[in-house]
């Protein structure tokens, strides 16, 4: 059984969705929780079209029923978890009748879905950015984990909490320590021993043990002058971050901006230096997917002009600071550095992943890799900790002036800001422009025809796009993506962030639509 929440798998992770659909055809149950009636709903036993940003209320109400009706996994909770009493206290205050008006799902349905979830073991939860891109994103994730621990679905094959990573190597970039708080393999930068280990390995001294800045803090720093030199590698921040007017002001404030990319894009307009990089098929290396599988990436053709591999560019800058880095290929960097320094990757070497990749943790070269975590209910920190959360509304909710909720996401035929897919023959023909997806009810109310150009306005900006009147979208919602510069949803989105993760609330802001 699957619980898919906040994930439009058929468009954002199409191949993963095929396996879910196969399982459903073979008799697996499927519950989809999503405001939109996207294509996976066609295969679902139950679809809960909750109100945007009400996930915690719904999940707490489900857990309320599981505890009230004694349907939870008492043995798992007793043996493998801690903090049940706090969870019980929090969810007891959230009966389905109380959650119903918040999430727009009636109490009977909430009870029904709770019973269904408790009736099958294991249940696999898949979530994507519908969970994380909220000001309560961290609490959303914790609530999903609470549910799975309560149901005893952790540490088993086909169970667990499975975030589908949006980008090909977002898992890997985290694993590699491209995060302000951890070295490769999630070793904290605040740990003096870890710092010493990396100083020794990198033959350097005086490394910082202070946690660094996250992207939104860096952007603020550009404006207040705390960040003077900014180095953007392969990100088109001018289109991907919320509130483009704000982002462009920040980028324009940068004193010295280096952008390393494969194309000129909206972000390079602000650069002082642009460095040409080799692309995906011009490099030997590895990607790490959502299942923590490290797979090979291979060179198929040479890079154009004098474009060079990214690792080479960083190495050359280090050399100019007097650091002679020995590794001189993707393989040397992985085999001689990464897998030596990150214990969970210690057993992964290029010669072992010529064919299929290996899933970390893989500590030794004899280790077969790890398909799922927390086997037998053994959590990294010992007992699984229930972290109860209370529902909080999005930072900006609809009102008289902006009566609709704008939620954003990805569409099948394009990827991010189209720097790649926009230059592939055929894909633009299949989807050539942004649309505002709206419900039949709202379209009727405003007299908007399908395909008509309309204006979408938020407190931060406005765009003119065609209306896509669709049964996928519920009344009161506008749904858009950020693939196209023109009509980009990020002219409208709200730069409000989760206080812990600083993930922006791309999934909820208030807008109005107007005929042109």
């Amino acid at each position, binding site marked *: 059984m699957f619980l898919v929440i906040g994930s439009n798998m058929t468009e954002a992770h*199409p191949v993963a969705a*095929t396996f879910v659909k196969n399982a459903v055809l073979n008799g697996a149950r499927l519950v989809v929780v999503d405001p939109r009636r996207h294509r996976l709903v066609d295969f679902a036993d139950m679809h809960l079209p909750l109100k945007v940003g009400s996930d915690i209320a719904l999940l707490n109400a489900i857990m309320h029923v599981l505890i009230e009706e004694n349907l939870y996994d008492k043995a798992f909770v007793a043996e493998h978890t801690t903090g049940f009493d706090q969870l019980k206290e929090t969810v007891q205050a959230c009966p389905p009748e109380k959650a119903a008006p918040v999430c727009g799902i009636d109490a009977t349905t909430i009870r029904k879905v709770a019973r269904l979830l408790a009736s099958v073991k294991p249940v696999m939860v898949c979530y994507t950015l519908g969970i994380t891109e909220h000001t309560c994103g961290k609490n959303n994730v914790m609530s999903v984990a609470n549910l799975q621990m309560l149901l005893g679905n952790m540490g088993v094959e086909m169970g667990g909490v499975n975030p*589908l990573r*949006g980008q*090909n*190597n977002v*898992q890997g970039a*985290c694993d*590699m*320590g*491209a*995060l302000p708080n951890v070295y490769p393999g999630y070793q904290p930068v605040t740990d003096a021993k870890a710092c010493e280990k990396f100083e020794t390995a990198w033959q*350097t001294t005086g490394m*910082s043990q202070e*946690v*660094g*800045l996250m*992207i939104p803090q860096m952007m603020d720093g550009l404006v207040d002058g*705390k960040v*003077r030199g*900014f180095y953007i590698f*392969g990100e088109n*921040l001018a289109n*991907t971050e919320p509130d483009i007017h704000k982002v462009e002001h920040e980028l324009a404030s940068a004193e*010295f901006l280096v952008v390393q990319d*494969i194309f*000129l894009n909206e972000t390079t307009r602000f650069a002082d*230096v642009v*460095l040409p990089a080799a692309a*995906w*098929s011009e*490099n030997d*290396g*590895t*990607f790490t*997917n*959502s299942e923590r599988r*490290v797979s090979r*990436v291979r060179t198929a053709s*040479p890079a*154009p*002009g*004098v*474009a*060079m591999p*990214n690792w080479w*560019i*960083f190495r050359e*800058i280090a050399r100019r600071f007097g650091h002679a880095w020995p590794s001189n290929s*993707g393989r040397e960097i992985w085999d001689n550095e990464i897998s030596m320094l990150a214990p969970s990757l210690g057993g992964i070497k290029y010669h072992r992943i010529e064919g299929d990749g290996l899933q970390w943790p893989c500590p030794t070269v004899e280790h077969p890799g790890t398909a799922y975590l927390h086997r037998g209910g053994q959590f990294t920190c010992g007992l699984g900790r229930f972290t109860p959360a209370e529902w909080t509304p999005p930072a900006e909710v609809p009102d008289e002036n902006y009566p609709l909720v704008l939620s954003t996401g990805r569409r*099948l035929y394009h990827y991010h800001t189209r720097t*790649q*897919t926009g230059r*592939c*023959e*055929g*894909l633009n*023909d*299949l989807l050539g422009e942004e649309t505002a997806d709206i419900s039949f009810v709202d379209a009727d109310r405003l007299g908007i025809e399908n395909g008509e150009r309309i204006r979408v306005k938020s407190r931060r900006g406005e765009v003119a796009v065609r209306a896509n009147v669709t049964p996928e979208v519920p009344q009161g919602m506008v749904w858009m993506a950020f693939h196209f510069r023109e009509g980009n949803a990020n002219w409208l989105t709200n730069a409000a962030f989760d206080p812990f*993760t600083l993930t922006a609330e791309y999934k909820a802001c208030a807008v109005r639509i107007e005929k042109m």
Partner: protein
Amino acid sequence: MAQGSISINGNRFPFEPEQTILQIAENNQIRIPTLCYLKGASPTGACRICVVEVEGARSLLAACSTPAVDGMVVHTESPRVVASRRETLELLLASGNHNCAIGSTREKDWTAFQMQAAASDNGEDLCPAWGDCRLQDLAYHYQVEGGKYPRTTPPYPMETVNPLIVRDFSRCILCGRCVQACNEIQVNRAIDFGYRGVAAKVVAGTDVPLKDSQCVFCGECIQACPTGALVEKKARFVWRPWKNRKIRTTCPYCGVGCQQWLHVQDDRIVKVTGVEDGAPNQGRLCVKGRFGYDFIYSDERLKTPLIREGDDFREASWDEALDLVADRFKAIIKESGSDALAGVSCARSINEDSYQMQKLFRGVFKTNNIDHCART
């Protein structure tokens, strides 16, 4: 768990419940040719190529759809089997524009046929699937020349009105693999069999062009097609198996990490297919994975370092650009400290690149101001 054993070509093999003759043969390295059988989908027994002789059975049985029974005695290449397969292949070769070299000796109207196929293809090359066609392989294997039966005229014109997939009904043998790929593997439910008898056709929706149907252009149907009936538009008559080098890699789009074969000719990727049996995607790809590769050859690629000059950029050498970056960063560190620098790494690039960038910021610049778009 063994349910007994069967004899194939004189050797005995144990089997598990519900195993078919074909599965037992494959598990024991005995080759039974197939055409319509698609791994992972339910066998249909439609094409009759995998027929085998089972002692005591009245007729030949399709190995793909016949479950093994204890004591069965099977012959996979008996004279009866071979004659049946040859007959099936003759009929299939007569059913459309199968204009490979097979059949050239017996047919009097070979030239006229080639001219008609070339006109249909709008080109002079032989079939786009030449050298990568199961029908051609089998015809060669069983030395079937074609021409025994009069050729039927293809009843439906080629469909080219979408940017990615060419549907050439003149080369469709109605094996149904594409229908299964769409409905059972990818479960997109875009195509199915339509019409009846000689009018049978694989149709999208109510026989509309793919672009007007539920099709999401994953191209699983192309990968499943055993002939030249479904071909990538971008690779049609460009990709040729004898010019081709296959390189395994990982898809550059979402976080599923699908394994791809890059088909490379003259240092250019000309098509992409899924790595059958590879983890995690078992050969499956989506529209971006299969068709989203040619951005790397865009004329707009950055080819040289650029340095700002007023409102514009000027071209620079690596040394000049990197010296400038290093000098400016050194000056900023000297004036304002290491934390006045910040960097954003790339979640699309390889692990080794992200590793190097955080190493540069931490080990060289001495700041932990390094992040990437995990928050987006």
